[in-house]
Each structure stands twice: as C-alpha cells, then as structure tokens.
C-alpha cells in the first residue's frame, strides 16, 4: 500500500512543477536577517561605517561590527546605507483608492462633529498604493480623516499587514480643523465676508462643542449615568489626556488664535498644516507645541510671499526651536515624502534636521520613540537599505523591513515596468 502511495506521488511530482499558474508570488516574510557591512545612519547615535544590523523576532537585536551571522539570512549591504523607516506625519494613504471616486473615499464622514470616526477602521490594508509607497522607505504614516470641525480620529499605521490591527503603530489623535480665515485653494471663490462669517460661526460651534465636552467629562468623572453620546465619549478622552488633539491650522492669525485656544483649554495638542508657521515661529516655540507641516512642495500662501516660502517654512520653524515633523498630505503619492524633506533640507533646514523630522521627531511626537524612529538595538526592525541618500531621486531603495518583515520590492508600478519595458509583441506581431 505504502509503495502504491509513493508511486502515485512520484507520478504527481512533475505535475506539481507544472501547476496551473506561472511564477511565484513573493510575500512579506519575517525571520532572522543580518544586514551586513553597511553605513548605518542611526539618526540618534550618529552614522556608523562598516556596521551590521541583526534583525530577529521583529526587533533590531544588535547594531555593531563583526556580528556573527549564525543562522541568520545574510544580506550584503556593502556600499549601501541603512536608515530607519520614514514617517509621514499626515496622509490619506489607505483611506482612499481613486481620489475622484466617492465610492472609494473613506476619509470624510457626514457631519461637523464626528470625532468618533476611526480612521483605523477604514484603512484598506490591500490598497494598491501601500506597496507603491513602502518601497520608497516610507514605512509609517498617520492616516488622517478630514471634513468637519472634528472629522475623526487619526491613526498611525505601518505599511505592512493584512488587518488594520496588524498595521497599527501605536498612536491615535483626534483631529480638529481649527476655524480658518484662509482659502482652501485657488479655486475657493468665497468672498472675504463669507470666509469671515464662516470662520466666526465655526469658532462659535467649536466653543459650544467644547463646552459640552467639558460638561460630559465632568459628569463622567463624577460617575454620573450618561446617555450614549459617542462624539462626547471621544472628546472626553482628549480632556482626560488619553488622546492628543491634532489641530489643523494654517494662516498666521489662525495659528495664534489656535495657540490661545489650546492654552485656555489646557489640552495636549499637536499643530498640523502650519503653512504660515514661519510668520509666527517664535510664538509656536514659546507655546512649546510640536508641529506637523507639509507639503513643502506647494505654493506660497500669499502672492506677495517669496517664491520659496513653503520650502523654507520647516527650516525657519526648526531654527526658532519648534519640534518639526514633515508630512506629504498626500495619498497615492505619499512616496514623495522624502523629496519634501529634501526640499526642506536644501532650503534652510539642513539634511540632518530634515531626516530627524521624518524619523525620530515623528516617533517622539507620536510617543513611540522607545520603539521607532532610529536604528538602535531593542527598537522595532522598521528600516530600509538604500544605495545613497533617500532624499535624492537618483538613489535606489534596495530592501525595506517593517516590524521585522522583509517586504517585497514590488508593486503594480514595478510590475507594469517589468511587463512593458520591452513589450511582446512590439510594433509588429511577427
């Protein structure tokens, strides 16, 4: 009988080799890896030449010279550079698939006050844009809801995993779109009066809502029996100090109003957007509020501003003493984050500070610097290997690790390149 089974398997063997499908799908895989002999840009502990990084169990086990490979898979990184994964401090990646199609827009819920809308719930782990993004070395993004005054709760995600929980990177914040005196874009044709009126109304609504949230929180503290009120439940978490506010604000006067508002409410806050931060950089520094700003690749907010106002904004804020994090504020092109950082670097911020702005500064602002943001033993193995400076378009990213998973250096953009570089058939069929 056994012989018969073996004979049967033997007959089947060639069939296995000729399965129904061609080729093999490459999956992310974890394990023990030794990235050997690289220049390691640790961000927090300097740049180390001829250094290796050992990864195991999702963590960086050690960083040093002459680490024995043991049973680790060795990846030769001679002439290459290792950087910690880059953070995008604000993106829609995973919350939208095709921008113009409402069916795929999961970032903006109906209503002005919806802080209980959880971005993490709507993250599509299989969005085509995720592998497109992560091969650039951008490994971690803050998924931002948008829309009303309190559009929802943002969540930090790592760009690998098959469920939102596998992707969750340990930070959430409630978004507040602070009443704005600026125009949303050059297509915003509201009159000056309408803008002012809308901003005043929004300010009134905001104060009303906040008053209600304070009452709710006080009742909660007093163990009162409360009706189901999910919006207030979420805002109460901000008042309790469990979640910070991500205060989206851009025009200089609005930034000053926001600073006063934050002080008066005594909440934990991070400023986001901050397009005109350079005008009031000292005030932001004085208030000791961290800033998530970007994109740098955008027009000056005013026609009278110098052409490079957006390029120089993060550098000016950093020089004033503000802790700056950079964001792309993009979705499908979140991969441009390092180029935004490059422009910030070129226009006054300097390479070192710009790199910090998308690594350790972000990790600190998000309260996860013990786990991420630099190449140090004990931290999560979320890093990448590049042929050079990742801000330079000429550099190639060779390997990306997220939470110790080696992610495939492939995506739809790359597959289309592989298929069409030399199309077959070409011009003629024969």
């Amino acid at each position: 009988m056994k012989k018969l089974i073996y004979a049967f398997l033997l007959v089947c063997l060639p069939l296995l080799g000729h399965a129904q499908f061609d080729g093999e799908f490459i999956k992310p895989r974890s394990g023990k890896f030794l990235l050997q002999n690289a220049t390691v840009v640790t961000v927090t502990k300097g740049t180390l030449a001829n250094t290796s990084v050992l990864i195991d169990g999702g963590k960086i086990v050690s960083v040093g010279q002459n680490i024995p490979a043991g049973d680790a898979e060795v990846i030769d990184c001679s002439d290459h550079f290792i950087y910690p994964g880059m953070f995008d401090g604000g993106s829609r990646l995973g919350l939208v698939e095709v921008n113009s199609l409402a069916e795929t827009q999961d970032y903006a819920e109906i209503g002005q006050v919806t802080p209980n809308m959880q971005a993490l719930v709507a993250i599509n782990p299989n969005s085509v844009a995720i592998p497109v993004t992560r091969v650039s070395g951008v490994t971690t993004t803050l998924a931002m809801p948008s829309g009303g005054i309190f559009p929802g709760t943002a969540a930090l995600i790592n760009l690998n995993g098959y469920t939102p929980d596998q992707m969750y990177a340990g930070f959430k914040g409630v978004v507040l779109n602070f009443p704005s005196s600026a125009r949303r874009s050059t297509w915003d044709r509201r009159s000056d009066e309408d803008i002012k009126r809308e901003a005043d109304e929004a300010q009134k609504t905001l104060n009303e809502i906040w008053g209600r949230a304070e009452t709710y929180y006080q009742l909660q503290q007093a163990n009162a029996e409360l009706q189901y009120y999910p919006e207030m439940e979420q805002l109460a978490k901000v008042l309790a100090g469990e979640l910070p506010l991500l205060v989206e604000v851009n025009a200089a006067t609005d930034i000053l109003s926001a600073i006063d508002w934050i002080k008066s409410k005594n909440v934990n806050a991070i400023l986001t957007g901050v397009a005109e931060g350079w005008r009031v950089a000292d005030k932001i520094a004085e208030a000791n509020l961290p800033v998530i700003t970007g994109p740098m690749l955008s027009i000056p907010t005013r026609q009278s501003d110098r052409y490079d106002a957006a390029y120089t904004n993060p550098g000016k804020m950093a020089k004033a003493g503000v802790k700056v994090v950079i964001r792309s504020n993009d979705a499908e092109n979140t991969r441009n984050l390092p180029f935004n950082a490059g422009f910030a670097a070129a226009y006054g911020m300097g390479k070192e500070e710009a790199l910090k702005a998308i690594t350790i500064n972000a990790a600190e602002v998000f309260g996860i610097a013990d786990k991420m943001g630099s190449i140090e033993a004990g931290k999560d193995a979320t890093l990448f290997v590049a042929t050079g400076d990742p801000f330079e378009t000429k550099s190639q990213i060779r390997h990306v690790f997220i939470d110790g998973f080696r992610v495939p250096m492939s995506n739809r953009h790359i597959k289309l390149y592989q298929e069409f570089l030399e199309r077959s058939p070409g011009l003629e069929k024969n």
Partner: protein
Amino acid sequence: MKKINLILICFLILGGMIANAQTPKGSLLIKNATVLTVTNGTLEETDVLVENGIIKKIGKNLNAANVEVIDATGKYLMPGIIDAHSHVALDAVNEATAPITSEVKMADVVNPYDIGLYRALAGGVTISHAMHGSANAIGGQNITLKHRYGSYNPEDLYMKEAPRTIKFALGENPTRVHGRGNGIQPRTRMGVDAVIRNGFNEALQYKKAWADYEAASKQRGANPVPPKYDSRLETLVDILDGNIIIHCHSYRADEIYALINTCREFGIDNIVFSHVNEGFKVAPELAQYTMGASVFADWWAYKFEVYYSTAYNAAILMENGVITSINSDSGELIRHLYHEAGKAQRYGELDDEQTLALITINPAKQLGIADKVGSIEEGKQADLVIFEGHPLSVYAIPQMTFVDGVKYFDINEDPDDMRLKVSASEALEPIFLKEHEHRCMHGVDFFFTNFGRSLFNHSH
C-alpha cells in the same frame, strides 16, 4: 488732403514701430560653469558668450568687452527649462460650450501679471506651453510663451517663432462635460473618436468647397457664391495641412491608440500626446507614428483612468525611442520640473543626459522650437539657468534665469514681493492653502460637485 496724408504717414510710422517693437535681448558672458549642453554632453569649466539674446560662443577663456560677466565657478549652467503643458498666465482655460472649439485662442487670454510666471522663472522655466483645457474633444489653440515677466503687454510673452498648436482631449473629461453634463455626444470613447473624425471630414468638405469656389471664380464671367467662412473648420483644415501641432490630453492606451489610427488615416503626423499615463503600453506605436509623449513624473490614481499607471512611464517611453518630456500642468509643479525629471532616475534609472532632455530639448521638439531653444548650442536663443548643485539633485537651487540673454530671476537680488500690480479692491491679501494642481478642467468645475470642498480632489 495734405493734412490727411500727414496723419496717414504718422499712423504708418507708428504702425511700423509697433510691428518692429522688440522684446528685450541681452548680452553677457558666463564664466567657468559646468555647462550641461543636453545635446553635446557636459563641458567642465566652460564659458558661454551671449550677444543680443543669442548664444554666440561656447568655449574656454572667452572674453568680451562691455558685457556683464557672471562668474559661475562651481555652478551648473543648463538650458532654460521648457514646460510642454501649462496653464500659467491664462485668465481662462476652458471654452466648454461645444465638443469642438478649434476657433478659440489662448493668445487672447494671456495674463502677463500672473505671479506664476515669476515662480516658474525661479524654478528655471523659461518657456511654457499655455494650453486650453481638456473639456472638449478638440479644444482651443494654445500659445507658446516665453517668460518675459515684467512686461504689461501680453504679446511680449508670445514666442512668435513657435508654430501653432492645438489642444485635443480624450477620455473622462470630454465625456463627462458633454456626454454626462450636457447630454450630447461624446459620452463614450467611441463618441470622442467619432467627434474628431466628423470634425476632420467636415473640414475636408469645407476645404473642397473653397477649392471649388476658387476654381469656379477663375472661369471667365463666373460669379460664384463663396462658402460661408468658418474659423472652426478653417483651423481643422490647418491641422490636416500639417500647419498645427496637436497636443492631446489622454490617459488610456486604447484611446491613444485609436487617435493614432485616426491621425494616420487623415495623414496627420504632427501629434504629441500629453499626460499619456498609459503611454507605456503603446510605446512602440507612439515611437513610430507620433511626435512623442509629454508625461507626469508620478501622478496617478486621482481618477479612474489613471489608476493603472506607473511612475516608470517616462523611462519605458524613453527606452522605446519615444520623444518624451515631463510637464507640470500645475502652477505648483512648474516650479520644480528639474526635480520632477529627476524622478525618472528613481523610477527607471535614466542617465543624466536622458533625464535633462525630458525638460529641455524633448519638449522643444514637441513644440516645434528645437532649432531655437532646448539646448546650449551656438546660434540658439540664450534661455539659460544657473544652478547651485546639479539640477537633478534634490538639493539643487536655481540661482539665475535668463530669457533671450536677459536676467529675469536672481536669487540674490530679487525682492520677496514680485507682483507687478496689487488689486485696488483687495483690502486683505487672500491666503491660499493650495494651488489647484490639475488645472485642465479649470472653468468647468461645476461639473464636479464635490470639488473645492476637499484639498485632495484632483480634477485633471
């Protein structure tokens, strides 16, 4: 009578002066630059002498009397960047009233005050192709602009030597505006193809009617009635006669292929495809039958017809021998086209010369002006940019930009506020958080109910 003659003479003289009014031309000597010629390699420590707006000599140790000398030691000199798809300095973009509006001219709506011109100069861009929008299958006639910022006369911005061009558009935009918006053809890609074919056939009939009329007029004693003049069809005839270059907004491979076939059928060779996100799928056809493709570096997924894009598009097209350029279609992106081109090195590892060609000689070819601009060669117009750092580095910073040898941007001398005029009715300067990037649908945004609400919606 004498008086009238005198007045007439005065007018004639005045007319002559206007006709001869010249845009400024400069002379200068740039010393010791690393010259990125684009067409003849890189020349280290080289001088470039400009006389009266023209590159006179390229070489070592050049001397010239009475011209400004600029020391460019340690700096890079490249040809002025050319943007083959822009809407900067236009007061209107779409005449979205019919599927064919070939009679419309963008030259009529040039706004010399647009600060976007200066911002483009600060990014090294000296020429932009100011285009009609993409609402119509056959849109209006475009105008090639030289960024002579500072003149209040729109005509001073025209690059008068540039050949005529016209905008075509395929796919979602014309079908949305006319089919779904107005309930008329085209609502599908079949309809777009039909609208263009019908236009060409009608133009052929029109041309024949005039030929018949002219032949008949020559008959002794004949007094035929002339056909009705039609500037729309007149323009289409000029396309069929090869006098106008088509620049066609397009995304999908099927629609690109269809228009290539239509053009071949009507004997049209002068066609450039713009955006062309799926151009990589029909690269051999684009190489064989067209004047190439003008693409975005990495834009995708802003609408369904660009969902199956790749950032490797430019590289695939270049490697397949398609004349390829990278354009902005945006008042933001036009400021850093050198960086956009650089992305073709990330996505496809093009070499420096190929990459620089994407924003210089190749767009010049597509606009029919490659004999005048697009490279640093003796005899060409002196549109030049000096960079600190190699222009393909993310750390590159443009220092000075010249058009016809005249300096229009100087990082060290220009004041911050470069507006040419301030609106008198403006009590408070408006603050804009974002340039609406994809401007092709400017003026027809009422078809997109959710636009303006969100910072992220793209309409291109």
